């Protein structure tokens, strides 16, 4: 209220006439005070108890955090065998990592002089520091494992098919980001393991030189060196690299990942929920009867959400249940199992921390984290092929799967039925035989370099023709043959994906157990020479 020109204004009249003894403003204040908790609740949750279908729908619909979910969910989507809870587990692990990560940031110092000491502080001095660090580390490993299993689940249930093709591509982005988060986090403790794993990683970024050198064009176009310099801000892993990895790990990658997860979830909604087989809607088995009450306020919005041939009238309702509380129970259970598993792991097992980084003496053997060990085996044949070309081919090939296999087959069925199960099994045997055969051959007889006696084998030959590239070529041939003989692109895709999975598993196992000092073959760690 302005008081222009200093003029005095008469006081306002009371809004209501009140007299003493009457239930005046004071009385109203009193009863407002008493009913404030209820009024507060009603202002937050603007609908009744979720007992009726309508209120249950509103619970989902009007809540910011829940409205990414549909108000009703198809029964197929909450069957345990549909998703195995892997997507939810991955998401929960991401949240755990964000929370524990922020806590670790309170004490962690990204400097080569202090990083290692701050890790020791966190492990030995900071209250609950050890548990938080352990949970952070184990969750990172678990997230990589879950994202891979989730991807395999989506693949084998053909969930990448139209209209979910692009969500599969976004998934590939999330897969790469998850690996990036793990890799950048790996350097931060600044111990020997970290230093040498990242030294190897950074030099893999430089390895395109292997190709440009062979072509004689490194002087003009040194993309390898450029990549390494951008990654490390130097030519060796040091303070510049630590800060860069820190920025990527705590800011850039988590933010991008969070945004992509949002898009991933949004598209699941837009694509009509999880992929489900056609018989899930046509089953003769009676679904639980539903007290059908037109629930949502904005039903037109919901119809637009469902990509289908006809608007979902009664047919859809028959096989759905209200999301609240049924799906909430499922998500809640998967989350609790995940959190509990991480807490138990963190409580009983300490995350490794070796000696402080020493740039002069490499770890022997210097092993990358388990999910990169398969690649490390390939890298030990050729840095460029194993570290850059083959991973790029695999990621690109996987991203293109939905575009190369567009067969309008039933989705939501594991292995697309009996034929696919057979193809998976036979391809698994084929891949196991070729990978084990290749490894046995390489360990027993070596490769080109070990055979050259007089003639020198040019590097380009070794780059292009080594056990890793031979394997990839064999896998590609196998899957093309499958497309041809089964006359189905889906079967070819299953063959290729299975080869990739089996190859990954065997190479990872082999590099973990059978590679020792100098990357030599040993039957077990107990045979390693003692220094």
């Amino acid at each position, binding site marked *: 209220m302005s008081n222009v020109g200093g003029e005095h204004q008469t006081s306002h009249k009371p809004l209501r006439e009140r007299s003493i003894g009457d239930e005046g403003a004071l009385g109203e204040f009193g009863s407002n005070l008493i009913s404030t908790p209820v009024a507060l609740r009603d202002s937050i949750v603007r609908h009744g108890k979720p007992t009726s279908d309508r209120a249950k729908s509103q619970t989902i619909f009007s809540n910011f955090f829940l409205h990414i979910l549909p108000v009703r969910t198809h029964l197929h989507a909450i069957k345990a065998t549909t998703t195995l809870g892997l997507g939810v587990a991955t998401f929960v692990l991401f949240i755990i990592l964000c929370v524990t990560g922020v806590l670790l940031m309170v004490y962690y110092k990204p400097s080569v002089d202090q990083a290692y000491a701050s890790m020791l502080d966190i492990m030995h001095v900071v209250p609950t520091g050890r548990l938080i660090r352990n949970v952070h580390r184990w969750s990172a490993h678990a997230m990589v494992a879950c994202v891979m299993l989730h991807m395999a689940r989506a693949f084998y249930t053909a969930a990448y098919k139209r209209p979910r093709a692009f969500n599969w591509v976004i998934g590939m982005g999330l897969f790469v980001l998850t690996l990036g988060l793990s890799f950048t986090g790996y350097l931060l403790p600044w111990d020997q393991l970290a230093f*040498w794993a990242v030294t*190897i990683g950074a030099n893999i970024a430089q390895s395109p030189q292997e190709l440009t050198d062979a072509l004689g064009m490194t002087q003009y176009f040194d993309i390898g060196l450029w990549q390494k310099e951008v990654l490390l801000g130097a030519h060796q892993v040091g303070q510049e690299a630590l800060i860069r990895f820190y920025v990527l790990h705590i800011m850039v990658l988590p933010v991008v990942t969070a945004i992509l997860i949002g898009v991933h979830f949004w598209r699941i909604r837009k694509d009509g929920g999880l992929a489900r087989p056609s018989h899930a809607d046509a089953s003769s088995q009676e679904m639980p009867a539903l007290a059908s009450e037109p629930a949502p306020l904005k039903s037109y919005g919901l119809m637009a959400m469902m990509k289908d041939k006809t608007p979902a009238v009664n047919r859809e309702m028959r096989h759905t249940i209200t999301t609240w509380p049924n799906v909430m129970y499922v998500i809640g259970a998967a989350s609790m199992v995940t959190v509990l598993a991480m807490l138990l792991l963190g409580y009983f097992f300490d995350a490794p921390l070796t000696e402080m980084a020493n740039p*002069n003496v*490499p770890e022997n053997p210097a092993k990358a984290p388990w999910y990169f060990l398969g690649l490390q085996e390939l890298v030990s044949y050729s*840095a460029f092929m194993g570290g850059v070309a083959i991973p790029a081919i695999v990621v690109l090939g996987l991203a293109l799967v939905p575009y190369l296999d567009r067969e309008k087959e039933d989705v939501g069925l594991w292995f697309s039925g009996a034929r696919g199960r057979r193809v998976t099994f036979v391809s698994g045997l084929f891949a196991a035989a070729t990978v084990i055969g290749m490894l046995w051959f390489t360990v027993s007889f070596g490769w080109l370099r*070990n055979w050259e006696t007089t003639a020198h084998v040019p590097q380009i030959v070794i*780059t292009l023709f080594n056990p890793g590239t031979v394997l990839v070529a064999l896998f590609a041939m196998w899957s093309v043959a499958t497309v041809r003989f089964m006359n189905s692109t889906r079967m070819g895709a299953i063959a290729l994906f299975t080869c990739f999975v089996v190859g990954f598993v065997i190479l990872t196992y082999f590099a973990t157990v059978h590679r020792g000092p*100098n*990357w030599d073959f040993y039957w077990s760690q107990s045979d390693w020479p003692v220094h």
Partner: protein
Amino acid sequence: MAADNNHIETSQRFAPPATRRDFLGLAATWSAIVAFVMAMLGALRLPMPSVFPESNSRVKLGRPDRFALGSATYFSKLRLWLFRDEAGFKAISSVCTHLGCVAERGVDGQYLCPCHGSKFDEIGAVKGGPAPKGLVWVDLSLSPEGWIVADTLSDVDPKTVLQA
């Protein structure tokens, strides 16, 4: 799509000449896009360092008379072997050309890398394993005061020797 075009009025089959308004709209849109892309590229220039922490890569190793004839001296911080023989001085980096681990020089004068088993002979040529090229020979020179100086960032052709 020729068949579809037949259903369209002749007047609509050919794009009408762009009006001044269309032109201005397109020009504005594209300049905004170009400006945005250039701004992004400019921003991305920042992480590309122009000065490296090891820019001062020339290091004094010592006076020539400190190294006996036939000696092999290891500078662990520089990861560098310095040899002196009749011909003069030579310096070989022990950083493996595969993925940057430090190769160990054995008693036989050969180098073995612990990370993926690359092998190099006494002059650093590849003998086995995944290394794509031989160990780097580092540029040596004499400072005005007569010290041996190694430039750890510049390599020379193998078998280049510094006479001193």
